[in-house]
């Protein structure tokens, strides 16, 4: 005879993510019956109210989608609009935009590695509690994060919602000396990042490998920020303008964020793991060596190791920032002249959390007719659910508190930004035991 004892465990909020959401897992015996990553962050309708705004406003407006990665939104917006207008930016501006992105990656990755994710591995509720036992580590993290913010502040005026990014370039560009003033800090930051790789690699990782489809930009000469083709480890190799032919967004009832899938295949993974696995050969020597020294080689298929990959990308971002500063010559003008014209343009850039797609259609007065934005977290959302379906099955016999902690840790491996896609995760594991 079969009798059922239903067990429900609730964790009201999964913290240390950006946004509001919840997770529901239903276990029947050792079988995972249902997994729902619910995103209930209130919708804000950016794509709707961008209609009827001038293209020059898009970088400022779309930045407000996310206070953690505003530069990503500004970069995807300006590149998509420049494509619509058919304009070329100067090589100097191109370089500065890479530096701008380095700043955001350093700031965002440091925040996530040390303040949002490391507490999971070390058993603390947050970085402040962690600082009681690991003061030097947290102080180093804050200093590293501040250096990322210093770059953003110099180029963009302020850390959150910087004001200098413009279609065609920047409103104002820094002098050579202003950039050189960052060098000493960045040399320290490079060392601190190398230590971060060693420190994160020494953490303990659950044994959980999946056969992911990794999707990232790939550029012939460099680790990707603002340019490249969209590639995957399953043979995808397309121009950014073809993105919507290959990826489709689904609207599911339990989420205010749309979920992306590869047409005809299913979920995929974007972000540090995908970039690293698809672009390892484009990392500078110092970053490749840092990875090899801790036996981190592509393909990395354990999502918990994303924290180490983020640290390797910190090394890259510091080294790249130093390279840009060495090569920098101020452009003749901060931005190229732009004029209104009918056009359609798409762009994808690598936000700290993965590829971010923007498309704009403009009318003859430069007004936005339609806008489409696909943030990294809505692309990872389905993949997170798939991971949890596999992972929860492994944890089915564990004590529920530990299983819950591990599921939250798995979700945080993606550094989900739910404000982009939405805000906080509520975790509910509903367990039904099958008694025979």
């Amino acid at each position, binding site marked *: 005879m079969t009798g059922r004892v239903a067990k429900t465990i609730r964790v009201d909020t999964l*913290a*240390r993510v950006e946004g509001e959401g919840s997770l529901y897992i239903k276990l029947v015996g050792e079988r995972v019956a249902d997994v729902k990553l619910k995103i209930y962050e209130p919708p804000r309708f950016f794509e709707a*109210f961008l209609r009827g705004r001038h293209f020059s406003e898009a970088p400022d407006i779309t930045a407000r989608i996310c206070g*953690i990665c505003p530069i990503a939104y500004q970069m995807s917006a300006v590149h998509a609009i420049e494509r619509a207008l058919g304009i070329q930016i100067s090589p100097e501006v191109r370089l500065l935009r890479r530096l701008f992105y380095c700043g955001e990656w350093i700031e965002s990755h440091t925040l996530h590695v040390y303040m949002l994710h490391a507490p999971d591995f070390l058993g603390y509720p947050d970085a402040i509690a962690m600082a009681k036992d690991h003061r030097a580590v947290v102080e180093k993290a804050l200093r590293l994060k501040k250096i990322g913010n210093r770059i953003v502040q110099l180029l963009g005026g302020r850390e959150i*919602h910087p*004001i200098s990014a413009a279609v065609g370039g920047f409103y104002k560009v820094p002098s050579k000396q202003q950039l050189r003033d960052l060098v000493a800090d960045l040399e320290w930051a490079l060392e601190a990042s190398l230590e971060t790789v060693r420190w994160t690699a020494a953490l303990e990782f659950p044994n959980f490998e999946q056969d992911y489809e990794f999707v990232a930009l790939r550029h012939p000469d460099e680790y990707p920020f603002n340019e490249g083709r969209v590639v995957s480890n399953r043979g995808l190799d397309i121009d950014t303008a073809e993105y919507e032919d290959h990826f489709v967004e689904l*609207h599911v009832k339990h989420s205010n964020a749309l979920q992306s899938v590869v047409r005809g295949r299913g979920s995929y993974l974007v972000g540090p793991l995908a970039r690293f696995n698809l672009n390892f050969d484009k990392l500078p020597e110092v970053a490749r060596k840092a990875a090899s020294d801790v036996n981190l080689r592509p393909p990395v298929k354990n999502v918990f190791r994303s924290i180490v990959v983020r640290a390797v990308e910190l090394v890259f971002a510091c080294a790249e920032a130093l390279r840009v500063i060495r090569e920098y010559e101020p452009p003749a003008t901060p931005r190229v002249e732009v004029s209104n014209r009918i056009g359609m343009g798409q762009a994808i850039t690598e936000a700290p959390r993965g590829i971010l797609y923007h498309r704009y259609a403009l009318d003859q007065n430069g007004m936005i007719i339609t806008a489409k934005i696909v943030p990294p977290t809505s692309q990872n959302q389905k993949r997170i659910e798939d991971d949890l379906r596999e992972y929860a099955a492994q944890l089915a016999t564990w004590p529920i508190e530990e299983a819950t902690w591990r599921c939250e840790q798995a979700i945080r491996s993606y550094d989900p930004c739910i404000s982009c896609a939405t805000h906080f995760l509520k975790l509910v594991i509903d367990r039904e035991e099958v008694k025979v």
Partner: protein
Amino acid sequence: MSSEKHKPRIGVFKFASCDGCQLSLLDAEDELLGVAGAVEISYFPEASSAMLKGPYDIGLVEGSITTHHDAQHIQEVRRQCKTLITIGACATAGGIQALRNWKDVDEFIRIVYATPQFISTLKLSTPIAEHVPVDFELRGCPINKHQLLELITATLAGRKPNVPSYSVCIECKRKANVCIAVARGIPCLGPVTQAGCGALCPSYDRGCYGCYGPMETPNTSSMTAQFRILGQADSQVARAFRSFNAWAWQFRKASEECERT
């Protein structure tokens, strides 16, 4: 975090927003550990999974009210907080998402979502003060972290915070910026916008776009007239007032006047 009883307890709450204003607290890299030593950060989900129950001495509220659920939740947050401070343009003026307030929200839902019946939202995005009494409103999109620290310090000391309500023009003068509107004819909302950013945009060769919202007594009709002199069409002036603080009544009135003419 710490459970020492004598420390003032702070809670950080989020409604519809981008998370940027609460991130300002984590961006205070030099002060964060000091702040954490002086107060008990009892509820701050973005930073900590230790979420302690109220009541709180200070509640920092980010975001605007856009759903039935949030309209009820803010009442509970108010009950739990001795002093309630709203941070940022969403919480103080409804934010960029208040652009829906002039449109048909059902149409907005159809533009973004394939299955509109899954989406539950209010017709208006409104500031916190339209729902509950607010003790102090800190402006900005995003807020200035130094103003936030000053505000927390002043509240704990029981004194008035030093957060000026004069215009961005004063900050430009202090920085000895040449006025970009006068000297170069660039439309600039600085004269009607509250200070706090440090006159950032004019310092970066562009006009202020009003992200700190209206100053104490803004002369918006004079501002509109000045924009027209600089060649701006009324539709452009209306858009200038209608961004991150669009629903703040002074900016709202100014944009609606431009639309009527």
